[in-house]
């Protein structure tokens, strides 16, 4: 067992983990931050995307000990300080960018990382960036639309709700 300490959503946390404990398990099982989801075993689906030191990371692909000392942000820390939805979260709700909600935390965290590096991405840039996030419900239409809307682009011309 190894001791790890990190900052998660601005809060200092620590715990004892096995060397093989994944960051996703540490967040879900030890910290009970169950918003980070695990949808595959091969780092493909992106339901577990969190930010580690500001970069989007698949939490199932990083050992908890590797995040020792890091700043980690999860979906539970994404809302505004007053509890209201962030711009991206609100855009997902406004544009029906989620259905079952399972991929949603990873989608939102990926979208947040994208908009940080590219504040007004094109449709093609969004689709390419989301290559590592699989959604089985929405057909991506409203996810792409929501991210464009969150970046301040006019999406009124894009078909349907």
């Amino acid at each position: 067992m190894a001791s790890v300490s990190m900052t998660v959503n601005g809060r200092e946390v620590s715990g004892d983990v096995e060397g093989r404990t994944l960051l996703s398990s540490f967040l879900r099982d030890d910290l009970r931050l169950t918003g980070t989801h695990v949808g595959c075993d091969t780092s493909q689906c992106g339901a577990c995307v969190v930010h580690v030191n500001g970069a989007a990371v698949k939490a199932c692909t990083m050992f908890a000990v590797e995040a020792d000392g890091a700043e980690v942000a999860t979906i539970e820390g994404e809302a505004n300080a007053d509890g209201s939805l962030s711009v991206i979260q609100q855009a997902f709700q406004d544009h029906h960018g989620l259905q079952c909600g399972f991929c949603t935390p990873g989608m939102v965290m990926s979208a947040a990382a994208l908009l940080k590096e590219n504040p007004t991405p094109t449709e093609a840039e969004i689709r390419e960036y989301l290559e590592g996030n699989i959604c089985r419900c929405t057909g991506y239409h409203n996810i792409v639309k929501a991210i464009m809307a969150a970046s301040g682009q006019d999406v009124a011309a894009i078909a349907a709700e």
Partner: protein
Amino acid sequence: MPKDSGIGASPKRREDVRFLTGAGKYTDDINIYGQTYVHFLRADVAHATINSIDTSAAAAMPGVVQIFTGADFEAVGGIPCGWQVTDRFGEPMQEPRHPVIAHGTIRHVGEIVAAVVGETLAQARDAAEAIVLDLTEKPAVVDMKAAAADGSTKVHDDLTSNICYDWGFVEENRDAVDQAIKDAAHVTTLELVNNRLVANPMEPRVAVGEYSRSDDMHTLHTTSQNPHVIRLLMGAFVLGIPEHKLRVVAPDVGGGFGTKIFHYAEEAFCTFAAKAVNRPVKWTSTRSEAFMSDAHGRDHVTKIELAMDADNNFTAVRTETYANMGAYLSTFASSVPTWLHGTLMAGNYKTPLIYVNVKAMFTNTVPVDAYRGAGRPEATFQLERVIDKAARERGVDPIALRRQNFVTEFPYATPVAVEYDTGDYEATMAKLEEIADIGGFAARRAESEKNGKLRGLGVNCYIEACGIAPSNLVGQLGARAGLYDAATVRVNATGSISVMVGAHSHGQGHETSFPQVISEMIGIPEDQIDIVHGDTSKIPFGMGTYGSRSLAVCGSAMVRAAEKVINKAKKIAAHLLEASDADIELKDGQFSVAGTDKSVAWGDVTLAAYVPHNYPLEDIEPGLEETAFYDPANFTYPAGAYACEVEVDPDTGKVTIERFSAADDFGNVINPMIVSGQVHGGIAQGVGQALLENCAYDEDGQLISASYMDYAMPRADDLPFYSVDHSCQTPCTHNPLGVKGCGEAGAIGSPPSVVNAVIDALQSGGKNVTHIDMPMSPSRVWEAMNNA
């Protein structure tokens, strides 16, 4: 001006807030004090005799609580099949025992051979590696036609063959159809494969079993679309637990698409083992386990013949299909290639004679069952593909050929035993031509050609049967359950309402759309109304969510229950207003006496029901809560027309979806935003089937697509923005909301247009390609082009 609440409005989904903030409560988020973890040792060969299982070394490993094998489940029932199909000779289908844990024989890769319950998951996994299996491998039965041949190895030694049933429909029409095909001016024949798929909801399955010694109560938390169905199947048929001692909870469920309808061995195991070890037992599927234990979908091999007269009127359709059942019969497996497939073979057309033959085959593969559309995509695909091929053979426009043969008068009794109540196929086709800008296609093709690409346009129609289903009818057809649904409308003293519904919401947005209906009926704000679902201890009963049935069946039950509530509330209001019941009107949350200015508010009436100081106690009981069960009088028949435009790169065979348009008739629409979202997702799954997805076995029955590294899921950059429309509305005539269902349409309607578009593109480039099997990967397309 669009409404902002009630029927026809698109309020934002209330469930989104918890999902967007990480506050969703999925089954894997449930952890119970003292819980153990199970790891299943699964077969890595397709077919073998189990000579012995030595668990002694594993049992001595650290953290092992108990190890179970098939012998521990000899005394419990097998996993049941919910539908008995009768074959064309009048005999019942062959129905093998489906054990919770393999006993004596392994019949597919992924079948559970042993289960290790441990203090931690890692300890259970480590111990499973120490289990010693002595197996004698047998030849695997994989190819369906080979499985049907005399002398084939049998998947089940105690059955007479690998044929589950040989079904003919309508058997009495067989000779007439043969004759019509002989007499036809033209017959178009097409042989095709409807590729095997895996539903792949993003949330893998999870089961947590609990047992309370204090009251002999079993609880199963599970990822299910229909908790009452699981309670019934597992309680009555597998474990012998009476229903009042078994609670099944399905909290937030991360997508289903059919694969979470079925009762699975892991659910029975966790429930059984929780009592045996007297601690909660949790199983969380890995994605690789999901690929080899979730029921698969589709997997039909079909020959279809379409006969026409000299004027291109359809005169007959004859099909022969091999449908894969896998190694065992999953819950609804037997109904999918029969009653959900043969009955839709008329499509949108007035073909007078139809004969469908289906041979359902046992193979050494994972069981196959319903996946989004279930039988209806298979029917639509073959029919809409053969019509496209016929149009090319006859040199006529494929849209014109369809139009010429449309059913135009309703109700319409098909020759395959169903009666379409309403529809307007011309209207959806005209709408499609508009939204897909079919008139502008030639210019877009010219532009693509300038860029060195081949462009194709593919169109198809579809019809489906939803709102499953009239119980007396399906009972005659072999269903072993009723297919009604139920709802309780509980009005609280202060006027807010909880509606307990049998339908389960796992992405469909019922928590938002169902209150819109109640709000419309009573005239109180939607935020005063909550939907409760997914827990057998909280809801009256329910057959669950599948077959696009939630609103058409459970929504109808909810309306009926609300009507009872309103009738009773009117009696209370009449008493308070000193008027006659018949004169009371309810509008915008106010009861008033017709023709007067006397009124009383909803909240005053509901308060009177629970504080009955001034109340007609001699006539009616206090309280305001009503339950209704609704059994539909017929199926509903959503229909529409879809168009796909593709570009094909002639150098690589890569297909790109450039445009996708869908014009649907779902009858009345409660929440247009949600309906569009359902269509979008269905289209993505249909395009996935057409271009990307394939569940593949090798000849030894080894599953070679068991992760997202090998099974190509559609991603954002595989798909365009879609154009969808559901303004053509012919309301269903037999349910109170006039709704038809929209959940499966996209997945049913989209694959043929993608294939039709690719064929169109290749033919425009001078390639004489008439068919490519799905998924149309670059290599398949390139090969077809270069062999043409």
